């Protein structure tokens, strides 16, 4: 056993390329410029979590609550002939069995892009695991027992189990009707730069198609010095947030309240309001701490099931899924991709031409946007004079796919990056050098009409490769690999925040951004403390309750630091403006004579008042509160899309045992180009977490369908990374150049370091054994076959 060593350091280095200073600094000696931000403060939520007192949805109960158990389809594609519920209903403690027939007076479908998702199977089922009935009982055990007694009879329909089958001409249709268009109006704006969408008039299994392109691709290929073609498959994954989807819902005369494992409570609220035709103000969605999110809890999941059940019986209902049910609720799109790249003799890219197919399962959910982003991100942060990309998100009779950390980036990045490495090898230049020659420089556009890149990728690349080379082992079957990625991140910039200044000068922050482990509770407290110049312990943060906090469109696309942070800075400024005006009134002076100090308002002639004193003196009765509001929209610094680029820069060193195919991870190096790390320890933690999830998809994880159902819908057969899989050396680098639009120059983080991991591992293995893998995960069997040149089919 080799000694594990820890290397966590912020790198100092020259600011290359774009002339701004390099803001790298050690954590122990933060800049004097700030009081609270830029420091690795203790996260307050972690204390509750280690004590076991932190409240998650799974811990929530309501008085008079019933327990729900979902009856699920055991067919991939079938007509529902009958649902026999009498036996279940006759059991003690069983209150009701809800089926689609009970929902005819509701709009019993949801889906924020394509409204194709039936709450309960209606007329037919489209995948194994689809909900067809909900059993409600006084205890969970009674609900489980009775669910076994619901007898559903089906007539099988021909099914399409893979994207390839679904794309065959005259293939059976997963959806044989067209649904009303986009419910989420911003979807179109989010994808506007990606070329026209082609929704043909005739029905096919293509849920969404995206094309992108510019320049004369055919001419570039005709004149190329070298053309490299690669084909890769990124596996079908399961995000495995350890708290499975669950919700408690109560529908009564005052409206609907749902407490749930939702990253985007406001988006869930909108879906629920449509289902019941309720005013938005009558739907309250709360998200306590989430036991993991990683994108898998974005958009509506189990909330409609719990809500319609409560609506039918008029009592609160709790629905908790098991892990296998969670896998059959949302998985990750796989990606089959082919790419050709034309190079000149120096290794400069002349053109890239690619096609991507994603298996999106039975319902669209967010897959159309995942696809659009995947197509945007597949060609990499390189100067590509001519481009032609096409992507299709395909319906199949499998578990529905949706967002997952990285948001489409990993699926395409594997192909694009290994394609570049193969070109370097063929041209006889290094894999670092080919990237240096093609990476966009700071400010240069990747996507036409979009924000230029706000990161110094060449400097970041050098830091990562230098680290890898420094510890490279000179032994057989050892290889290093690295890759880069850039994501148009942040999603649509609509954020709000409120702050309330209390009579003792303490501050309450209201935000609609959900704490799912990423550390937003602590981060928002840091920002508010900094802006008011008060101690962080005088700040409370209340999040994700649509009835009580401030609107936030989503908690995804790494947006919270940048967009919720910006809204909060503006809310603090608004409150401080009000406090200055109040102080001017108290002092009978002009407001221009009043200024802000740390925790105080200063006036003429040395006058000074604590923030809380301003509140009590202005109101006059030792009471009161001052509220500040901050708004962010697509205007000003956030007008240009995307709000920021989230880059990924990752390298690995691997050792391959050619006898067994076993890969040992020797090195893992990441560089997060975050502009400014408000909590450096938290950024490093997110980077290691993201990279580790990437390693899961690169080395172990893959959902496998065997006939109509998954062969491994459990955590025994679906293997995720464990402690023993850790790299021997872990080097987490931060690049801080204050070049983001967020507070203090910050940009988002948390997803970027997942994106290039698959390609980096494939590249390292290729260097170690001399053959290029084309599909992940690189399980021992796959590596052994590759090393011994034995095809997968033998």
């Amino acid at each position, binding site marked *: 056993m080799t000694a594990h060593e820890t290397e966590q350091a912020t790198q100092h280095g020259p600011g290359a390329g774009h002339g701004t200073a390099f803001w790298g600094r050690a954590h122990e000696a933060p800049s004097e410029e700030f009081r609270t931000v830029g420091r690795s403060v203790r996260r307050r939520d972690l204390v509750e979590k280690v004590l076991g007192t932190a409240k998650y949805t799974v811990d929530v109960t309501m008085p008079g609550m019933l327990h729900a158990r979902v009856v699920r389809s055991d067919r991939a594609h079938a007509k529902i002939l009958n649902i026999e519920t009498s036996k279940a209903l006759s059991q003690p403690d069983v209150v009701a069995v809800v089926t689609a027939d009970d929902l005819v007076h509701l709009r019993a479908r949801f889906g924020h892009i394509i409204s194709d998702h039936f709450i309960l199977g209606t007329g037919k089922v489209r995948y194994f695991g689809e909900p067809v009935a909900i059993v409600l009982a006084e205890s969970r055990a009674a609900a489980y027992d009775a669910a076994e007694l619901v007898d559903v009879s089906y007539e099988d329909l021909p099914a399409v189990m893979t994207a390839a089958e679904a794309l065959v001409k005259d293939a059976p249709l997963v959806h044989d009707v067209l649904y009303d268009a986009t419910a989420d109006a911003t979807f179109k704006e989010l994808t506007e730069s990606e070329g026209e969408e082609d929704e043909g008039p005739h029905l096919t299994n293509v849920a969404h198609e995206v094309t992108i392109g510019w320049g004369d691709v055919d001419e570039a290929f005709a004149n190329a010095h070298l053309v490299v073609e690669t084909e890769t498959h990124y596996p079908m994954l399961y995000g495995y947030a350890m708290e499975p989807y669950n919700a408690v819902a109560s529908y009564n005369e005052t409206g609907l309240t749902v407490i749930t494992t939702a990253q985007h409570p406001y988006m869930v609220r909108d879906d629920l309001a449509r289902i019941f035709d309720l005013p938005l103000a009558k739907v309250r969605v709360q998200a306590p701490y989430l036991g993991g999110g990683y994108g898998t809890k974005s958009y509506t999941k189990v909330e409609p099931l719990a809500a319609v059940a409560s609506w039918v019986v008029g009592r609160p209902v709790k629905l908790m899924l098991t892990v296998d049910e969670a896998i059959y609720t949302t998985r990750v799109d796989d990606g089959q991709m082919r790419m050709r790249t034309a190079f000149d003799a120096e290794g400069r890219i002349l053109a890239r031409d690619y096609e991507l197919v994603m298996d999106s399962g039975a319902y669209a959910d967010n897959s159309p946007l995942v696809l659009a982003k995947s197509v945007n991100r597949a060609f990499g942060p390189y100067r590509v004079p001519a481009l032609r990309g096409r992507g299709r998100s395909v319906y199949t009779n499998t578990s529905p796919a949706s967002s997952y950390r990285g948001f489409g980036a990993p699926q395409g990045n594997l192909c694009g990056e290994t394609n570049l490495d193969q070109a370097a090898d063929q041209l006889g230049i290094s894999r670092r050098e080919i990237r240096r020659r093609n990476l966009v420089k700071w400010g240069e556009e990747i996507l036409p009409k979009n924000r230029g890149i706000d990161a110094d990728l060449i400097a970041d690349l050098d830091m990562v490769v230098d680290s890898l080379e420094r510890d490279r082992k000179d032994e057989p079957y050892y290889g290093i690999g690295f890759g880069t990625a850039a994501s148009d991140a942040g999603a649509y910039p609509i954020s709000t925040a409120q702050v309330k200044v209390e009579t003792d000068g303490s501050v309450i922050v209201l935000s609609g951004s959900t704490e799912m482990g990423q550390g937003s509770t602590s981060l928002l407290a840091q920002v508010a403390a900094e802006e008011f110049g008060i101690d962080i312990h005088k700040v409370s943060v209340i999040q994700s309750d649509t009835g009580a906090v401030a609107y936030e469109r989503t908690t995804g696309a790494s947006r919270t630091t940048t967009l919720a942070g910006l809204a909060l800075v503006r809310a603090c400024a608004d409150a401080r403006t009000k406090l200055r005006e109040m102080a001017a009134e108290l002092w009978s002076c002009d407001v221009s004579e009043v200024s802000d100090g740390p925790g105080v308002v200063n006036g003429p002639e040395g006058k000074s008042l604590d923030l809380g004193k301003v509140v009590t003196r202005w109101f006059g009765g030792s009471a009161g509160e001052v509220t500040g509001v901050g708004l962010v929209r697509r205007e000003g610094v956030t007008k240009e899309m995307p709000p920021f680029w989230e880059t990924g820069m990752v390298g690995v060193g691997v050792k391959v045992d050619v006898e067994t195919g076993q890969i040992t991870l020797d090195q893992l190096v990441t560089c997060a180009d975050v502009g400014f790390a408000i909590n450096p320890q938290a950024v490093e933690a997110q980077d290691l977490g993201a990279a*580790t999830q990437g390693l899961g998809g690169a080395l172990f994880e893959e959902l496998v369908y065997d006939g109509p159902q998954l062969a491994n819908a459990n955590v025994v057969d679906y293997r995720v990374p464990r402690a023993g899989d850790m790299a021997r050396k872990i080097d987490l680098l931060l690049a801080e150049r204050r070049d983001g639009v967020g507070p203090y120059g910050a940009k988002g983080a948390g997803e970027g370091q997942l994106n290039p991991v698959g390609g980096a591992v494939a590249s390292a293995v290729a260097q170690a054994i001399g053959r290029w893998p084309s599909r992940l995960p690189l399980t021992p069997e796959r590596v052994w076959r590759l090393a011994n040149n034995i095809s997968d089919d033998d």
Partner: protein
Amino acid sequence: MAADQLAQVEISVEVNGTVVERVVEPRTLLVDFLREDLGLTGTKQSCLLEVCGVCTVLVDGRPVSSCTSLAVDADGHKVTTVEGLSDGKTMHPLQESFVDNHALQCGFCTPGFLMMSKALLDESPDVDREEIVEYLDGNICRCTGYQPIVQAVEQVAAQMRQEREVAR
């Protein structure tokens, strides 16, 4: 036979130092007994197959998956959950170290890791990094990438060694 027709069983369990007596269905799982009957919701569950370690509690000091143990089997035994780690005033050194090392993010797996780590250090405080990794290999964390967790346990082990040497 329906569940309510089954005989109810009276059990007596010492949970976090307090003896509790309850009547339960024989099939009641230890995790549900703790979470639902006693309201000790700090213990979580996830895989239900004894492979994720989330639901780990200590029974007579030994780590046990409470999702696949019966409450009746805890009859007459001592159970320690995450709520029993701190004395209500100061946190257990492992809890402190987990916070300091950022050894958790979403925190859902944390009670299991804490209980497993406590079992390890109670059993043999003289552990090295390799032993910690091996002992914690049965617990899954999806947020941290494990390194901060291992580091947190290593630090507490080192502290304990130091305290022992001082005491000597």
